[in-house]
């Protein structure tokens, strides 16, 4: 039976309560009669022979590119870059797609006699991956072959000796990327397209860039003019990356892009109820829900976090293309939209979202308040094409405890951002002007980024900028169950229950609002007409 597409349910009195994520727990929430619930399409079937599909992609490139085997030769300098820990979500069960693709590429390189091969995790300003995380992404065989010899690197955006200035775009955007990658005879980028904004020129122009380069598009102006990030023609972020990508290409850097899509099979069998439609829950699903939600509620928060962060998604390879960057990306985008697109008719006054435990920036970590805002307003809000699900001046109601809790090793500058910046302003442009540079150039943050496992000092700013479009668009943001002091500091409104939140929302959108719930994850993207 072929997977069913996503759809929009209109609730009536017989509609069972809907699953609502609430950070490191979840529950059931009865939505008002007449509400809409957007469900993701069911996961597409996995490719039956992923290794064969990868080999085929490498030898039958997309766009103007020779097959990989023709691009490889003895004596050449080859660099293979790959997406970091932020993708996919949750981390996929072994073998990771990066391992599968890189093993296939290395087989070809070995056949061609290429000896000078270096792997680079394309961190941009993200935290360095740990050895277990690298082993999981690449597999033990690749890790053990490359790491001991210093041939497995993690991009260091703060080491001038490892960066190369490429030039400026016509708009004056400086492009500075990883020197080893730029000076290689061939740069192969191995990507995972979890959502439509991933991949394309963004892989190299962002993933291998420095702060000097990234600041040109990771800023409030660009973010506000990306409507949305997921829809390339309407995304200023996309346009900037494409300008930079073209400059990189014109500079003579040869890139062989390998992009992949995964299906949306997000949770393993013991958590499979999380991606089913509630009225289709079996007795086993109901029992699993009751047992799991009770256990998570009763467990100490660290234990609950470990349980959830331990989930490995049964994501499977859905498609793979290789070759010229733009041609590959165009094909991949078609597949992403096919898997994740849901047609939605018209906008809503209120959008509700249950925020889960994980975002791209807290894998094996804590979803701190800034990341809560980013997950809801930066990501879920922006998962649209055409128009946002919620109308301009509407209200977003998010469910999350939003505790003032931070991982000091992963997010040190977030703590200071929360205490020193958000206490002064929540305006992205003001913080961009007054605070960003001090954080971005702080030697201690740079030290922790380079030597520990810390996100770059400027990263919390970027997460806040990511919310710019939503904050400008919405009339009010309410967090149900959120720590009141923390929620208020971020300029949002706390509510104890959905009923309270709806009453508060009515002050903004009127007495009889329409409501749409994003039943997310699994991920979907709303095609709003």
């Amino acid at each position: 039976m072929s997977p069913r597409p996503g759809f929009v349910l209109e609730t009536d009195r017989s509609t069972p309560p809907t699953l609502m994520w609430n950070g490191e727990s979840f529950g059931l929430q009865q939505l008002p009669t007449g509400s809409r619930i957007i469900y993701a399409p069911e996961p597409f079937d996995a490719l039956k022979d992923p290794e064969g599909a990868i080999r085929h992609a490498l030898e039958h490139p997309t766009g103007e590119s020779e097959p990989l085997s023709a691009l490889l030769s003895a004596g050449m300098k080859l660099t293979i870059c790959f997406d970091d820990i932020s993708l996919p979500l949750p981390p996929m069960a072994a073998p990771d797609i990066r391992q599968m693709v890189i093993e296939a590429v290395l087989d070809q390189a070995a056949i061609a006699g290429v000896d000078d091969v270096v792997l680079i995790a394309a961190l941009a300003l993200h935290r360095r991956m740990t050895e277990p995380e690298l082993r999981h992404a690449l597999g033990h065989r690749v890790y053990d072959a490359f790491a001991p010899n210093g041939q497995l690197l993690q991009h260091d955006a703060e080491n001038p000796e490892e960066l190369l200035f490429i030039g400026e775009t016509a708009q004056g955007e400086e492009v500075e990327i990883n020197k080893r990658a730029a000076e290689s005879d061939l740069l192969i980028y191995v990507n995972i397209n979890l959502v439509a904004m991933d991949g394309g020129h963004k892989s190299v122009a962002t993933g291998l860039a420095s702060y000097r380069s990234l600041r040109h598009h990771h800023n409030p102006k660009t973010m506000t003019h990306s409507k949305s990030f997921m829809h390339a023609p309407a995304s200023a972020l996309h346009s900037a990356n494409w300008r930079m990508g073209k400059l990189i290409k014109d500079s003579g850097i040869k890139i062989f892009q390998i992009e992949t899509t995964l299906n949306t099979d997000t949770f393993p069998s013991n958590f499979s109820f999380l991606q089913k439609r509630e009225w289709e829950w079996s007795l086993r699903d109901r029992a699993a829900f009751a047992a799991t939600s009770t256990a998570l509620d009763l467990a100490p928060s660290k234990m609950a976090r470990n349980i959830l962060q331990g989930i490995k998604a049964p994501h499977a390879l859905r498609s793979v293309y290789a070759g010229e960057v733009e041609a590959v990306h165009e094909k991949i985008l078609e597949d992403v939209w096919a898997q994740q697109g849901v047609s939605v008719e018209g906008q809503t006054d209120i959008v509700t979202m249950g925020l889960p435990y994980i975002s791209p920036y807290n894998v094996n970590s804590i979803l701190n308040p800034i990341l809560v805002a980013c997950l809801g307003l930066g990501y879920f809000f922006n998962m649209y094409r055409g128009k946002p699900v919620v109308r301009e001046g509407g209200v977003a109601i998010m469910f999350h405890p939003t505790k003032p809790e931070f991982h000091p090793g992963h997010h040190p500058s977030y703590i200071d951002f929360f205490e020193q910046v958000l206490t002064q302003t929540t305006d992205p442009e003001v913080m961009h002007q007054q605070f960003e540079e001090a954080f971005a150039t702080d030697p201690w943050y740079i030290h922790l980024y380079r030597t520990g496992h810390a996100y770059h000092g400027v990263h919390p700013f970027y997460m806040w900028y990511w919310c710019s479009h939503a904050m400008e668009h919405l009339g009010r943001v309410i967090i149900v169950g959120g720590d009141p002091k923390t929620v208020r500091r971020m300029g949002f409104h706390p509510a104890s229950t959905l009923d309270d939140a709806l009453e508060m929302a009515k002050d903004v959108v009127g007495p009889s609002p329409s409501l749409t719930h994003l039943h997310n994850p699994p991920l979907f993207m709303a095609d709003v007409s």
Partner: protein
Amino acid sequence: MKALRMERRPTRFVAAYLASALGAGRGAGVGPLRLGDGPAPQDLGATWIPVTPLLAGICGSDLATVDGRASRSFESIVSFPFVPGHEIVGIAERDGTDAKGQAFSAGTRIAIQPVLGCAARGVALCDTCSQGQVGRCGNLVHGHLRPGLQTGYCADTGGGWSEGPVMAHASQIFVVPEALSDDEAVMAEPMACALHAALRSPLSEDDTIAVIGAGTLGLGVVAAIDFLHHEHGTMKPRRVIVGARYSHQRSLAVSLGADEVVEPKQLSRAVRSATRSGSIGSSEQLTELAGGATITFDCVGSGESIAEALRITAPGGRIILVGMPAKASIDLAPLWRREIELIGAYAYGVESIQGQAVATFDLAFSFIAAKQLGALVSAHYPLERFEEALAHAGQAGSRGATKIVFESSRSFKHRKDDQ
């Protein structure tokens, strides 16, 4: 004379110590402090003036004394029974001369500089008193007075927590400017302490200053740094960062001149950011800054606050100990290794500012007027409600207050007549 008196009753000190575990000031109900009628202090001679208190403040050292938690080093420099209260504004009951030798008449409002130095004790001036540094006087147990480091700790002088009289020596008397209200005048003593502390180390424009604690003294130090810069041309430090627990303290700190105010647990992070310092030890938890504040004012005076100061003060920096400390267990290795100076800041006397000598109390009067520091007085209590007053003072921060004062019946009458 109706007064609150402290008597040497060891069992009550123990009871107060135990009760204070429930909160500062809670020793008042069970400790050695008692309200009652007793003998007024004897007239100590022509250079002494009987003063009827109007207002008398409650400070941290008073609370520690009432709770039996003060340093035992004070035992030999107090004499029992004594009437507490050393932050005093009152009315002179006869004509006299003040600390500058200027005559005043009975009925004049005066503030008492409470240190009982050589002049008050009738002994030849020691070196420090000769230099105007009466706070450093070593003759606190000599002369015709019984021991007592200040009015309010001496059995012969009386103290502010009474209907009066308090005996004030001419050298202790400062005539309150007409423009100052009683609330402003009663702040003269604690604000003189704050000014003295702010002047204990020269400031430079490169200094990053951390202030631990935002009670009366912490806020006073912040205000003093700003006042001294604007009114007396001292250097403005690069940044003043305050750790303040309560929201009203944070608002006050900003209005009084702080550049940045954070919750106490965030102070080390704020200092690190401001100084762009690294961290020693756990790089994640900021156990000790590699650099830090060039000057830290510890306005709490606990073992924990001194340890915090050592963690956030830069090598070669200075810690000014403003809050009254007691016995504490502190790891001083960072002080030794980082060559940090630990400097006490007690009381007042004569300050030297830009080459000019000025009495700290006179400086305090203009400071209080300029910064409108009478607003720090949060509540007045009659002596009869001393337990409530001391409990309020002990919980001042959490109850949105800063300075709690006793108000005498003379002051009540005075205010009623004015209305």
